[in-house]
């Protein structure tokens, strides 16, 4: 008995001591933080956007949690969208795309399109220097474009973005002519993308294939260090004075440093911003968006990304989906509104068109067009001879109607759940859906043509994005033309849209293309992906570019 008591006393003592130590730690950190904080004096009201940028609080470190790790910080070679969040701080582009879609000057002050539409002559800024001191000039621009074309660079998306580019002529130190193989309506706009950001030629030559780990650009922030899987640090470029038109602060950034923390686990990312270990975190899942809105210390920033929304592409090369009525039956049999409402709780917008609402030429008239209609779906399938058997499943010539549904992302934005719901919904009209989730897209999906439906999305700044997905000419090893469309009428529209320089005419062309794609039931658009950031209310001035990527030029931290 006595022994037991003694043991218990010990236990109690130990746990008491533990609690004391823990609480002591906690109060210590709070004191430290309080003493570190500078006197709150220059803080502008957090709710108003800074009308006078001079008054924005200078200094401070922003910690920003990314959901995945960038692969490389070489804009020309990087293959993942998450890199762009960091690339945008380090690199500038020749031009910028404003919120309304128009193209404005940045490193290039003005430009002229040749009468044959096959070359652009750019006048460049004369006061720009890269972080390593290399001057920015026509030579640097030529180096960049040739670097993207050079196969040894292994440029991924950048090469596709500048595709008709063939060569460049240096006219004088600050004038350059870029020559195109064919006229291109989206070439200029594509130059605004971070993936065509301008790198320092000196650094790119010096570091070779290690440039992506030692990035040097001319942007508002300089690269400092990269701890694998932990963080990427950048610091203010004090000489910066050439900010683009989509930010207020054209000169050096307010922040001293930005530390991009890599936090793949959703709950941890959220926990880090709630516990104020980071001040902003990206990719907040829908179920947390609603509860976060109630937290008074946090703000939620959400912006729709542009390009092709998440879309189910129906494979035309497969029977019976080569028949219009079969595809229409899917259109009427899948209740997209319910899917989007159930999974995203009203935080995502439903997509109605093959392109996102923010793109040039988006056809608003398609909205609320095709709705769930089970009877119609059933009769369409009856009409083409697929009749329901005793088990409620459709068959024709002794074959069951099955649909092989493939998605390549391990439940990014609940895409696997979409597949599961579609499976349930299509059962009602007698279609058996086999779902396959695989990352090995090229081999198992495209090369072997092994899908009836494939779900995908793409970020893009121009409706010409449709070309790579729907034009019959696109036949690159796997990929391209996912729905396998062979439609001369659509080809014609996409050809015209790719070269048309008059925006009013382009809008008309792309409206027709969108209607055609929906009316012929080549696809089922699902949702427009919003980029969502939860940030502490002390963070002000966070903006987003035309594609939905964050811009840090105007950010300041108030106390």
């Amino acid at each position, binding site marked *: 008995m006595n022994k037991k008591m003694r043991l218990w006393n010990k236990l109690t003592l130990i746990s008491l001591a533990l609690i004391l130590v823990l609480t002591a730690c906690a109060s210590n950190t709070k004191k430290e933080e309080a003493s570190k904080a500078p006197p709150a004096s220059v803080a502008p009201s957090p709710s108003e956007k800074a009308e006078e940028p001079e008054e924005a609080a200078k200094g401070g470190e922003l910690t920003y949690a990314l959901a995945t790790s960038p692969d490389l910080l070489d804009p020309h070679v990087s293959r993942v969208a998450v890199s762009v969040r960091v690339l945008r701080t380090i690199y500038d582009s020749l031009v910028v795309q404003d919120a309304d879609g128009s193209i404005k000057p940045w490193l290039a002050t003005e430009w002229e399109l040749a009468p044959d539409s096959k070359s652009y002559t750019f006048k460049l800024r004369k006061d720009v220097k890269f972080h390593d001191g290399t001057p920015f000039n026509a030579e640097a621009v030529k180096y960049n474009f040739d670097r993207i074309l050079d196969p040894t660079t292994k440029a991924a998306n950048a090469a596709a973005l500048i595709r008709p580019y063939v060569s460049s002529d240096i006219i004088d130190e600050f004038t350059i002519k870029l020559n195109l193989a064919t006229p291109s309506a989206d070439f200029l706009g594509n130059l605004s993308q971070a993936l065509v950001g301008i790198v320092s030629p000196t650094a790119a030559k010096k570091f070779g294939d290690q440039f992506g*780990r030692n990035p040097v650009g001319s942007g508002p922030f300089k690269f400092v260090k990269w*701890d694998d899987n932990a963080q990427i640090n950048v610091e203010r470029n004090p000489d910066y004075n050439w900010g683009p038109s989509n930010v207020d602060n054209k000169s050096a950034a307010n922040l001293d440093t930005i530390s991009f923390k890599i936090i793949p686990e959703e709950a941890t990312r959220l*926990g*880090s911003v709630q516990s104020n270990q*980071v001040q902003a975190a990206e990719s907040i899942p829908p179920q947390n968006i609603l509860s976060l809105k109630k937290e008074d210390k946090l703000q939620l920033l959400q912006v729709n990304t542009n390009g092709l929304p998440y879309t189910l592409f129906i494979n035309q090369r497969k029977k019976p989906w080569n028949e219009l009525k079969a595809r229409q039956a899917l259109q009427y049999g899948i209740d997209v509104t319910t899917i989007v409402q159930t999974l995203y709780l009203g935080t995502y917008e439903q997509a109605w068109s093959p392109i996102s609402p923010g793109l040039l030429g988006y056809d608003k008239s398609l909205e609320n067009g095709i709705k769930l209609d089970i009877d119609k779906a059933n009769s369409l399938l009856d009409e083409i001879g697929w009749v329901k058997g005793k088990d409620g499943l459709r068959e024709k010539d002794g074959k069951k109607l099955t649909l092989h549904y493939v998605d390549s992302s391990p439940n990014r934005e609940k895409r696997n759940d979409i597949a599961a719901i579609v499976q349930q919904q299509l059962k009602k009209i007698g279609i058996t859906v086999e779902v396959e989730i695989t990352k090995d897209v090229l*081999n198992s999906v495209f090369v072997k043509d092994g899908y009836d439906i494939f779900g995908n999305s793409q970020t893009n700044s121009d409706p010409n994005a449709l070309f790579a997905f729907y034009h019959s000419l696109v036949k*690159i090893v796997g990929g391209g033309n996912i729905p396998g469309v062979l439609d001369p009428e659509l080809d014609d529209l996409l050809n015209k849209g790719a070269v048309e320089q008059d925006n009013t005419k382009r809008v008309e062309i792309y409206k027709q293309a969108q209607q055609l794609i929906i009316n012929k039931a080549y696809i089922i658009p699902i949702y427009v992906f919003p980029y969502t950031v939860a940030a502490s209310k002390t963070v002000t001035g966070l903006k987003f570019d035309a594609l939905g990527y964050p811009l840090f030029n105007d950010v300041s931290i108030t106390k």
Partner: protein
Amino acid sequence: MTKLILVRLSTSLLVILGSLVLVFIIIYLLPGDPVLQMLDPNTATPEDIANLRHQLGLDKSFVSQFLTYANQMLHGDFGKSILNSEPVLPKIIKHFPDTLALTLASSLISAAVGIFLGVLSAIHRNSWIDIVTRIVGLFGISMPSFWSGILLILIFSVHFGWFPAMGSDGWKTLVLPAFTLGIVGSGFIVRMVRNSMLEVINEQFILTLRSKGLSERLVMYRHALRNALIPAITMIGVLVGELMAGAVVIETVFSRQGIGRIVSDALMAKDLPVVQGVVFFSAIIYVLVNLLVDLSYSVIDPRVRRAH
């Protein structure tokens, strides 16, 4: 004693060689083509694919690929990452201390908590202390570590704000992940220590010691525990492997640096040289730990020493 060390060393070497072969075969047989993974589906041509395959030596026969690979690995050249051409071995060596710190801290927690609770529940067999301890141990084993990790973040980071939710700098960031992993390990050790303590307690020599008038505490901690520890230490050797595997999940949950993180990222990207490198490296560490465990028996238990 020397013979024991020699035998153990040579079997360890065999295990390492075996793991080298196994890792290569598994990755060779893995479905999916790394070349197709590396190229951009929108721009790659068949020639690009063939060129890259040749460049990586993937067009050679299985045997010649293996010989090249084994030769390089045994010379300490673990190759370069496909993704960013970073040499693999320096990368592993740079990140290993983070994983080592996590593994050591969680082993210590497992051992301390596990042995303490194990002894406690054996001494108080069938009392409520025993029942509670066993339930706690079972709980520790059955909770998925990513779940308990997130739970700890919610309680100690978001709610109390005591420890950081993520990162790998300083001891404070080590606390939550080490406990998360430690809980799992302690669950196993509690059961092991309890069982072997119970066996030992019923042996004759304990009765002798008691009848000689030794204090109960001395009997339990000095004599019974010492004899009960051998299976527990074996368990700890196995646990180190368990914990290193657990690091893959925990390092991701807590956004720590470390080789677990490296391998999970490399798997996602099918960056095979990195995967092979980390798996082979971990195999070596595991074998070394078990070698140490084996040798430590002879220190703790004189019977083992005499047997050789």
